[in-house]
């Protein structure tokens, strides 16, 4: 039972803290910090479903987030939809697209798959940059009327924040649920040895396509929410390759294949990055530090922080999943 797993309660506690802390004293700057942390955790934990659970490196994971943002913002501004149905529709639309893409590119293994994901990212970005209804390379603005149904901009930003926190919690619970499921076991088998898994009865083609599609859903929802909050979307910010790659750094830092690791890595790295970017002396070196950190992690602790914890305290494996 999922209710008996300590990590579930930790996730709910984390979400409650995220919701309560900035609300207490109406701390908007804390809210803006935390929304980035929440976003990092959403992207990392869903990326973990592909890299950590299934063993397929997706370099273009950000494409789900960007497309979700586009579909959602389009539905709100052009079609006049409400925020929540727009976000959910964006999630389903992007998942469906991922399923179709997945059935094609998931025939590839290892490095070939990784390269194809870069190809998908660049091709989608290039398509959106030329797509007239979505404003080509200038993108779209969220119209002022879109904030009205949510009680004006100030109120809307808080609502969006709570929704993002909810999506973060859902992402982690999803990871937790899949990990203990039969589906998850099949994915782990594929990660270890795909051919052996098939011979043991795992339908790898379908499993991979499903997880690729599932890993697209919540990032796409988060895309709608974030770009609604930002008020604008364009191809260069929606499909930022660097952010896609930083997601991998976060995952490795925390510990790929673990739920807690994806949250920890996402949270820590995002705080580090924010600190470096705002520090006058270090801002120029944030990539250098991130790169050095990544090199150190994979060299010294390929299991990331959680893997290191497992080695230190083997019993922690049963609690921290």
């Amino acid at each position, binding site marked *: 039972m999922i209710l008996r797993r300590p990590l579930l309660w930790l996730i709910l506690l984390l979400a409650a803290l995220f919701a309560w802390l900035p609300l207490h004293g109406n701390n908007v700057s804390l809210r803006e910090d935390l929304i980035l942390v929440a976003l990092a955790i959403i992207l990392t934990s869903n990326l973990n479903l592909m*890299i950590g659970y299934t*063993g397929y*490196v997706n370099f273009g994971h950000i494409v789900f987030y960007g497309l979700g943002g586009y579909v959602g913002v389009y539905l709100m501004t052009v079609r006049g939809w409400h925020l929540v149905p727009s976000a959910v529709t964006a999630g389903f639309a992007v998942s469906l697209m991922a399923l179709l893409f997945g059935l*094609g*590119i998931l*025939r*590839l293994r*290892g*490095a*070939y798959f*990784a*390269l*194809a994901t*870069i*190809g*998908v990212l*660049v*091709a989608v*970005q*290039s*398509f959106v*940059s*030329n797509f007239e209804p979505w404003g080509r*390379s200038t993108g779209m603005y969220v119209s002022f009327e879109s904030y009205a149904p949510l009680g004006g901009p100030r109120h809307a930003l808080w609502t969006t924040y709570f929704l993002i926190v909810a999506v973060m919690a859902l992402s982690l619970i999803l990871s937790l649920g899949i990990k203990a499921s039969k589906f998850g076991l099949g994915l782990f088998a594929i990660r270890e040895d795909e051919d052996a898994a098939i011979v043991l009865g795992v339908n790898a083609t379908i499993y991979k396509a499903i997880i690729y599609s599932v890993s697209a859903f919540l990032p796409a929802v988060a895309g709608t929410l974030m770009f609604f909050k930002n008020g604008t979307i364009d191809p260069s910010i929606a499909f930022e*390759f660097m952010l896609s*790659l930083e997601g*991998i750094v976060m995952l*490795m830092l925390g510990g790929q294949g673990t739920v807690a690791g994806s949250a920890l890595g996402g949270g820590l790295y995002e705080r580090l990055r924010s600190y470096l970017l705002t520090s006058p002396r270090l801002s*120029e*070196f*944030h*990539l*250098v*530090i*991130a*790169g*050095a950190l*990544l*090199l150190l992690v*994979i*060299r010294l602790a*390929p299991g990331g922080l959680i893997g290191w914890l497992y080695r230190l305290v083997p019993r922690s494996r049963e609690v921290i999943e």
Partner: protein
Amino acid sequence: MSGIFASMIDGLLIGSVYGLAAMGLSLIWGVMDVINLTHGAMIALGMFGMYLLFNATAINAYLLLAPMIAGGLILGVIIYWLAVNWVVDRPILMSLLSTFAVNMMVIGIGTAIWSTSPYNVDFSVPGITVGEYTFTGNHMFAALSAVLIALLLEMFLRRTRTGKAIRAVADNRDAAELMGISSTRVLMVAFAIGIALAVASGALVSTLFPFTILSGAGYQLKSFVVTVLAGLGKPFGALVAGVLLGLLEGAVSPFIAISWIPLIEFGLFVLVLIVFPRGIFSRATA
């Protein structure tokens, strides 16, 4: 009509530079099964290396290729020991990430030094005018240099002892080791050559177009496309595929907006990957 013809010749010339860059990627990939994600950063370093060297010496930029290649070899050895030696034979994720980490560091340092504003190498060779179209001398010299370097590499791989060892290791590393070939040394040399080729192609590009520290990324992506078209570990095939990609760009650019080209290239890339996972030019084996 002459417009598209001229555009295609231009594409062909630039394509040989794409091909040279891709040769470096393909060599490393084929020999050690490592996808070198420092590739783009190395191309960028080639551009800035050429910029610095040219401004310091002010001699013919194409003669400066020799010291650039030498520098690239040294850089390759350093990166090999820093990030590659210990990931050979580890899961593909490890080699992708360790080379990517080096890429981040190089780009980070480069951005700190040169920011992301454009630079250019102020050197030009007089061109040839045929009818209404002028072929710039730099394009021709760059293409000529690229082909020359490619031929030298091919000769090195076929004629020299080390070159043969590289091919043997690429073919079957275990067997090569049984024959007494030290694979670590061979891998290091192959990696260094791969980096030197990336640096050289960056240096050539810097004589054609303005560049920033981030420009390497685009050429890295093109190198992936070219390598996959050619099939892995076929350096000379990469040169041919590079020329073909350049021709394709040249052929379509008069007809459609330039911003559509990446979509065509990468759509094609993904399609080729799916349909011919071993490359168009390689025959399927069981």
